[in-house]
Structure formats: structure tokens, C-alpha cells
């Protein structure tokens, strides 16, 4: 899933999204950031030929309503979903108002009477079916995911969609084994779950929400993000084709107002939300005292901690993967690099070199490492925080690569000389921007890593096993990656401490949010 090692070069790729060539000659002797002159950077001798994934095989409608009670229903107040790499609209989607949400909840409630009582072994087979159908159509789904969201095809093809299928497959197998999940406890479904998901991993987040909910006998009303609703509609198609009882999965389109209508609906038993901490707090407040259950998977400001004894080249790859995976639109991104002082200069030099070789451009090109920023708004937020970083006195380092003329793109960027109080060290940027801080002792690393209201992820790079275990215990975060970063698996629980939310998704622990345990 990581942008893999590749020849040193700065891309200016000839893809459907054309980019201006930059002057590359300066790097043939001394690439920026490198302290040692390189005799030859062979990437400078030729360009990567464009390798665009074709889109001709995909099918989708020009206009979508909602998916309620097993049927696609027409809606109103349509908005356009934009391809962020071209700024061209892909399709139109309706906005569900409170009445439409109510219709979806009623369908889910009705379906719960069937689904909640169905034998687990039968529920399982439906979920297995969905997993298989996703695998069958994985190429189409990957292409659409990249078109609608801007992520590189290499990631949607190799990470997102395989994980989507695997997630359904994993939870399918739980459906008839729930009585073994929590020894001594009686478990039952919660009822109707309202699920609101973000735009960074559109279909994967839908799978993370729907699969465990259905395995445990709940029915759902899901709202995809308004900038990335396309693959959710394709999933609805698959769910219909898989023959799920009508109303087990309902998908309503829309923005914040639709989300609020779900949160406020009195007949919903459980809310599951993935998104920003600000919105998470609004939701927690909105359902206070209603008895609705809640899980929140919110923001992060993950620390990636590099000790001097780490395998530095591998760590640098881990840093790159940690922050530039999915354009940095990752709640668990390693957006704060904590590097031990004695290797700071070495790591920074390697990072400067490495970001030059990242290929930024057309998400559908198979060579692309960093695709398009998801939306104009998000690009604006990233720029504003980067400006704040510069004005607060940190030193900015940016790839010299050219950006395509059209679309929302941002150069891979990192800041050195960042102090803990800087906004870029405290606030989630949610873009390809890394803040570099230093530490001397493990205690200092822990103190700095934990010095944030968030607690979603952390990485530790060291060759010393005992230190790795010590750090893993001391870091207040739900996921710790040791000598790796940004790894995901359906069997592996994911979720945060502190203001990164509560509840886990994945594995046995991922069943808990959707079960009454007595």
C-alpha cells in the first residue's frame, strides 16, 4: 500500500491530467536536500510513460436518489459529485431530508424484524455473497473510487477494495458464531443503526460500518459523504443483487443536514460515526440522554517516532507511507514525526530526497503515488494550515514537482523546526503535510507523542525489542505500529483513545458496538 521505492525523480507526468514540465536538470548532480551528490539519478533520464487505468468498463447512473427498502428511489435537491482530479462532475445525488430519512429508518425497522430473527448461518451466507460480488467487481469499484475521491488507483485497487471484500468476508463468518465471541454473556442485536461515514475511504468505511452491523443482526441506514457517494450506490446495487431482504441496508445521500436527521431520528438505536472530532462532539451532544448507543471514530494527530537505532531507510519509507498514503487523508496518519535528535539531519536529508521522487498526478495512473485532494474545501483547509505553519516559524520543505493544471493537488510537504505549540503540531491537517519534531530520550518521546487531545495511532521505529514494547505500552493510542505504519486488516481492531473517539472496528472487539452484551 505504501508508495514503494522508486527511482529518484520528480514527475511531470503525461496523463489525461496534463502537467507542466519542470526543470529537472538541477537534480542530475545534486538533488535538493541531499548532502551527497549523486552522479546519476537515472529517473532523470526518462519519464514514466502514462499508464492510465481505463474507465470504459464502468457503469453508473448520471443521477442517483437513495436506496431504501431494497429499491433505488428518486430524491430531490440534487448535488454534483466532482472528480477532484478534473473538477468535472461525475454524477448527481439527491439530498435526503428528514422525511426521506424517516422512510429509510422505517424500512430498516421493518427489516430488523426479519433480519434480527434470521438464523446466523443464513445471515452469514448473504454477507459472504456480498464479499464475493465485491471481489468480482473489484476493478470497477476501484476505478470509480479513484474517480470520485481522487485516491491513486494503486491504493484503491490494492488496498481499499480488497479490504472491503475481506471485511465482509470476515464478519460473514461471525454471524453464526456470536455466542462464542464473549464467553458467559448473552448477546443480541441492538436494532437499527444509523451510520455516517467520511470521504477518505468511502467504500471501505461503508464496509467497516455495514459488515459488523449486519453480522450481529442489526439493520442500517447509512449516509456516505457528500463528496464521495458513488461507490456506496454501487454497493447498494450489489446488496440488491445479492438478494438481501429489503430494508436491511438503506443508503441515503446528502450532506450534514441528512446526517443530522439520522442522528436525531427517535427510532434509531445506535449511531456510528467516522469523521472529524468537531462533528463527533456535536453528535455526542445531540444524542445525550436519548439512550442511543454511540461509537465515534474521529480525528488524529499520530506520532511516528524514529529512534536512532532504527533501520533508517525503512523508517523513511514508513514515514512516507505514514503521511502520504491516501494524500494524507487518513485519520490515523503519522502526521507528527518525532525523530531522535542524533539522526534528525540524516532523516530530514533522506526525506527531502524521497519526496522528490513521489509521483503526484492523475489518480487513475498506475504510477501515481499521490492523487488528488478530495475537494476544493479540503485543499483550502490544507493550504490555510500550511500557511499557519510557515507564519508560526517552522521551515517548509516541499517537493519541486509540477502539479497538473486542473484538479485539486498539493505537493508533498514537510516542516522542520516545529514546536509542540504550533498549530501544525496540534491540529489535524488531513493532507500530505508532515510536521517534524525532535526528542532526546524515550520519556520525552512519550510525553510529546501523548501531548495531544487525540489518541488514534502511533508508530515506533527501533531495533530494540524491549524499547518497542515499552513504547507500545506508554503511548496513549488505539493502534500502535512497530516498524511499520498504516496497516489495516479486518481481523485487527481499529479505534481511538481520548478525543479520537471510542469503540473499535475490526475483529472480535468490532462486534461489541452492535451487540447488547448481558
Amino acid at each position: 500500500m505504501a508508495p514503494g521505492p522508486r527511482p529518484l525523480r520528480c514527475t511531470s507526468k503525461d496523463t489525461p491530467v496534463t502537467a507542466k514540465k519542470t526543470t529537472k536538470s538541477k537534480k542530475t548532480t545534486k538533488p535538493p536536500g541531499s548532502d551527497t551528490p549523486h552522479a546519476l539519478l537515472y529517473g532523470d533520464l526518462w519519464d514514466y510513460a502514462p499508464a492510465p487505468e481505463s474507465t470504459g468498463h464502468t457503469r453508473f447512473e448520471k443521477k442517483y436518489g437513495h436506496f431504501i427498502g431494497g429499491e433505488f428511489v428518486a430524491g430531490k435537491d440534487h448535488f454534483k459529485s466532482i472528480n477532484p482530479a478534473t473538477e468535472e462532475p461525475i454524477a448527481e445525488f439527491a439530498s435526503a431530508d428528514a422525511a426521506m430519512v424517516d422512510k429509510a429508518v422505517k424500512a430498516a425497522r421493518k427489516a430488523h424484524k426479519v433480519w434480527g430473527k434470521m438464523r446466523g448461518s443464513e445471515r452469514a451466507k448473504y454477507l459472504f455473497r456480498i464479499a464475493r460480488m465485491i471481489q468480482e467487481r473489484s476493478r470497477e469499484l476501484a476505478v470509480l473510487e479513484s474517480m470520485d475521491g481522487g485516491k491513486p488507483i494503486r491504493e484503491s485497487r490494492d488496498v481499499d477494495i480488497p479490504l472491503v471484500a475481506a471485511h465482509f468476508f470476515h464478519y460473514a463468518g461471525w454471524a453464526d458464531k456470536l455466542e462464542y465471541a464473549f464467553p458467559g454473556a448473552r448477546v443480541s442485536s441492538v436494532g437499527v443503526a444509523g451510520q455516517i461515514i467520511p470521504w477518505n475511504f468511502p467504500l471501505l468505511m461503508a464496509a467497516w460500518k455495514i459488515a459488523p452491523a449486519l453480522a450481529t443482526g442489526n439493520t442500517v441506514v447509512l449516509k456516505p459523504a457528500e463528496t464521495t457517494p458513488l461507490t456506496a450506490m454501487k454497493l447498494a446495487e450489489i446488496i440488491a443483487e445479492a438478494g438481501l431482504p429489503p430494508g436491511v441496508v438503506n443508503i441515503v445521500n446528502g450532506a450534514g443536514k441528512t446526517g443530522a436527521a439520522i442522528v436525531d431520528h427517535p427510532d434509531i438505536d445506535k449511531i456510528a460515526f467516522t469523521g472529524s472530532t468537531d462533528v463527533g462532539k456535536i453528535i455526542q451532544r445531540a444524542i445525550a440522554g436519548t439512550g442511543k448507543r454511540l461509537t465515534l471514530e474521529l480525528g488524529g494527530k499520530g506520532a511516528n517516532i524514529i529512534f536512532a537505532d532504527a533501520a533508517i531507510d525503512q523508517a523513511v519509507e514508513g514515514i512516507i507511507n505514514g503521511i502520504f498514503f491516501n494524500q494524507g487523508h487518513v485519520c490515523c496518519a503519522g502526521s507528527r514525526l518525532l525523530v531522535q535528535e542524533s539522526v534528525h539531519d540524516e532523516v530530514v536529508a533522506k526525506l527531502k530526497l524521497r519526496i522528490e521522487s513521489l509521483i503526484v498526478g492523475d489518480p487513475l495512473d498506475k504510477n501515481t503515488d499521490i492523487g488528488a485532494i478530495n475537494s476544493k474545501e479540503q485543499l483550502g483547509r490544507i493550504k490555510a494550515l500550511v500557511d499557519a505553519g510557515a507564519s508560526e516559524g517552522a521551515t517548509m520543505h516541499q517537493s519541486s514537482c509540477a502539479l497538473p493544471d486542473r484538479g485539486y493537488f498539493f505537493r508533498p510537504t514537510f516542516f522542520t523546526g516545529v514546536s509542540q505549540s504550533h498549530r501544525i503540531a496540534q491540529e489535524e491537517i488531513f493532507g500530505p503535510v508532515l510536521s517534524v519534531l525532535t526528542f532526546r530520550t524515550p520519556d520525552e518521546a512519550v510525553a510529546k507523542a501523548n501531548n495531544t487531545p487525540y489518541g488514534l495511532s502511533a508508530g515506533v521505529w527501533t531495533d530494540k525489542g524491549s524499547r518497542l514494547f515499552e513504547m507500545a505500552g506508554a503511548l496513549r493510542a488505539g493502534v500502535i505500529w512497530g516498524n511499520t505504519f498504516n496497516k489495516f486488516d479486518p481481523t485487527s481492531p481499529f479505534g481511538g483513545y481520548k478525543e479520537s473517539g471510542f469503540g473499535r472496528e475490526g475483529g472480535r472487539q468490532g462486534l461489541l458496538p452492535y451487540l447488547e452484551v448481558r
Partner: protein
Amino acid sequence: MSKETTSRINVLKTYKLYIGGAFPRTESGRYDRQTNAKGDLVANICRASRKDFRNAMVAARKAQRGWAARSAFNRSQILYRMAEMLESRSATFERALEDAAGYKKKDAAAEVATAIDRLVWYAGWCDKFTQLFGNTNPVASAHFNFTFPEAMGVVTVLAPKSAPLLGLISTFAPVIVGGNSTIVVVDNDAPTIAIELAEVLATSDLPGGVVNILTGRRDELTPHIGSHMDLDAIFAVGSDKDEERALSIAATESIKRTKFIDDRSASEWRDADAQSPYMILPFIEFKTAWHPIGGVAGGGGAY
């Protein structure tokens, strides 16, 4: 010389708060009167203030890391030690339940016996719940991956109104089993029993600050508990709708975890289902750790 009378007067106990292993008076200097069923004064008890809660919070935070860092075996022994200390004072607690809380003799004996047994039961969970709730995860990539429960941090327990001894133990024991420290807020008809229990805790090798006990008025303290930015979780027993709503709203500011359960009658607290390892679950965090597995030549899954 006139003849002296031989009768002696009882020494009354001053009941104070229990914070950081010490017994301070409330800083507010305020008191509430605790009376028995006949209306006689049992004691003037401390009416804890916001500042007392904040002091307890500091003590609890300070104690928590050390408590969680102790070996599970050691925590287990300390909870067991509490049971030992309670057993040796069982007659005291039985009498206190009768005198202060109006229990019948039989019920008092049953509550004390269950309280001791419950402590023993939770003591045994200290080095077992990790295995019950944690697991390794068979991920598809070449990584070793495991998930284990960790303490949430500092948890405030709004203790039950009923069962002045057993209700307390049934609610704070599962919280500290998981390595949390706690501030127990007691607002019932016989809060002196909570402070008697504090004397048991203080002599059970329990590090100061792991359990702090505040007597006072729950409605007065809850706004400050809900909004305290350093508190990790709230475990509220028997909240009405208004309290649940107010606490839940206040909790959002720092995304505190909240757990609300109904109160039980004193006899229901003795039921077997009033204890469960799943009472530990709301007050732990799951941490998942990954590490690559190397590809040693000739290595493989099976031999």
C-alpha cells in the same frame, strides 16, 4: 470528696473524605447531617465541594499510572487483601448497616458476606480479564498483531443509592480491576459506611489515590464532574433522565466515556448477575499493536 460515676461516654468518630490515601475534611467546611431510621443524629458528614473533587482528581491521576503498571498479580492480591480486611471487620459493618442504614440483622449479614465474596471474585479477574478480552489477530499480511485491554485512566463512579456497602464495592471494584483509578461519589442515606470502607481500603496495601471517596450531594457535584477536562470516564448508577442528559452533554467537551446503569434494590445487588467481567469492559481501552514478521529462510508456519 464526692463519688465519681463509672459510666463512660462513647468516643464519636469524625467522618471525613478519603483523598489520595489521606482523610482530609472537606475544604469547604460544609456538612450534612446523617440520621438513622429513628431520626437520631449518626454523624455530621462532609459535604464535598467542587474543589474537593478537583483535589481527588489530581490524586487519582497521580496514582493511576503506577496502579496500572503494577503486575496483575499484585493488583489481584491487593483486592484480595481488601476482602481480608473487610472479613475481619465484618461485625463492624453488619452493626453499621443495622444502626445507620436500618438493615435487618439477616440482611446486614448477607450484604457484608456478599461484599467480601465480590471482592474476592473481582480480585481473581485482575490477571484474567486481559486474556478474556484480548487476542492475537490473524491478519493477512506478514505481521504479528495483537489486541489487549488497557486502563482507561480516571473514572468517576456515581455510586448507587442503595446497598451502602455492597453497592460501592460492586461498582468500583470492576473499575480498578482494569488498572483505573477512581473517585467514588457517595450520596446515600448512610454515607458513613463508605468512609468506614475507606478505612478498610487504607489498610489494604491499596496505593493512595487509586480509590478516592467523596461524600456529599451528587446533584451539586455532577456538573463539575461532567466538565472536568482531565477525567476519562463516568460510571453513573441510577441517574434519572435529567442527570444522564446533563452528564452526557458535559462529557462531550473532552469525549469522555459514559456508562449508565440502573440502581438495584439492596437485595438485588446481592444477585449473581450484579457481578460480571463485562462490568470491566466499559472502562478499558483496546490497544492493537502490529509488528512485521521477518522471512527467515526455511521458516514457515508448520513443520
